[in-house]
């Protein structure tokens, strides 16, 4: 009889990774949802709200699985609404303020290009539940990328004003892209076990998507200088606190409130 000798995946690493993934989707989803009712056109308003809802839906799946793996009885809602800032593990890019519409789209594009590659790769995860969520998310993320990429090109290669704004957005956000490919013991352990791709393995694909798009958008790719990081280990900018204040208000003021 053949025994299944595959070692169990390190559960605490799995939990840490899922929280990082879930928090990225949650914080970006919240940021994008801030545009609801404020977008420059009705059609864009609905499109951005759809993106926000997709991301929050993905959050539910990632944080739900994280809670299950942690085994302490915490639900996705508990993780989203009852943690403090230092316990959040999203990268700093997603908590950057929305700025103007162009800056929101530039942030979305830089994130989507990475998110797309990650979801694509995670469909081959050795952890079945991760592969299943990634398969569902991939279709949504592929559309997010198609849309943000298209708009970055249109606005970059648009009027003088839109070009200027897109270049400024790119310059401002670029130092936050390094954290997309950062790794520590969590990623080392999980990539060695075939659960996730190594973050660095996504870099060349991302560079290609970004370079092609930016050149089509007639935008100048900034040099890789100093890269901000810290969100992945709970060291955030002051912006996260404001996001959580708004997002968590109800559960903090009326603990356990349901509808």
């Amino acid at each position, binding site marked *: 009889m053949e025994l299944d000798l595959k070692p169990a995946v390190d559960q605490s690493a799995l939990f840490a990774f899922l929280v990082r993934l879930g928090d990225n989707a949650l914080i970006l989803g919240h940021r994008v949802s801030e545009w609801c009712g404020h977008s420059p056109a*009705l*059609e864009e308003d*609905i*499109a951005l709200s*759809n993106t926000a809802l997709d991301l929050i839906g993905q959050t539910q799946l990632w944080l739900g699985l994280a809670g299950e793996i942690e085994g302490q009885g915490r639900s996705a809602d508990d993780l989203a609404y009852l943690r403090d800032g230092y316990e959040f593990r999203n990268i700093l890019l997603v908590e950057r303020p929305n700025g103007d519409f162009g800056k929101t789209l530039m942030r979305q594009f830089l994130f989507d290009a990475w998110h797309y590659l990650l979801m694509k790769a995670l469909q081959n995860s050795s952890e079945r539940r991760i592969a299943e969520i990634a398969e569902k998310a991939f279709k949504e993320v592929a*559309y997010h990328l*198609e*849309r943000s990429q*298209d708009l970055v090109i*249109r606005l970059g290669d648009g009027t003088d004003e839109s070009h200027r704004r897109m270049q400024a957005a790119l310059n401002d956000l670029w130092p936050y892209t390094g954290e997309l490919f950062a790794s520590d013991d969590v990623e080392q352990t999980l990539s060695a076990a075939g659960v996730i791709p190594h973050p660095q393995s996504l870099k060349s694909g991302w560079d290609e998507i970004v370079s092609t798009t930016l050149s089509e958008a007639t935008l100048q790719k900034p040099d890789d200088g100093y890269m901000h990081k810290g969100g992945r280990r709970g060291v955030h900018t002051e912006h996260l606190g404001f996001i959580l204040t708004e997002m968590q208000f109800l559960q903090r003021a009326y603990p356990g409130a349901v509808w």
Partner: protein
Amino acid sequence: MSNEWPLWEVFIRGQHGLNHRHVGSLHAPDAEMAVNNARDVYTRRNEGVSIWVVKSSDITASAPSEKGPLFDPSNSKVYRHPTFFEIPDEVGHM
């Protein structure tokens, strides 16, 4: 000339085998974005398998003032309706 994006009429095919149906309109700078916007505005609840968009200005409509000459003459021609035939029971539902 206004700065507004042009208006597009949106047609969605709900299922394979059905015709595209007019579902509404929206604004977009060009056809490609009109399709994207239509996807976001009109297929959020799994309504479609295919989208057509056409510039509203490219649609030629019949004039309401010509309603009489256009449509009234067919009113009194009941013999154009296939209602004078007895359908044998064996045919069943048609």
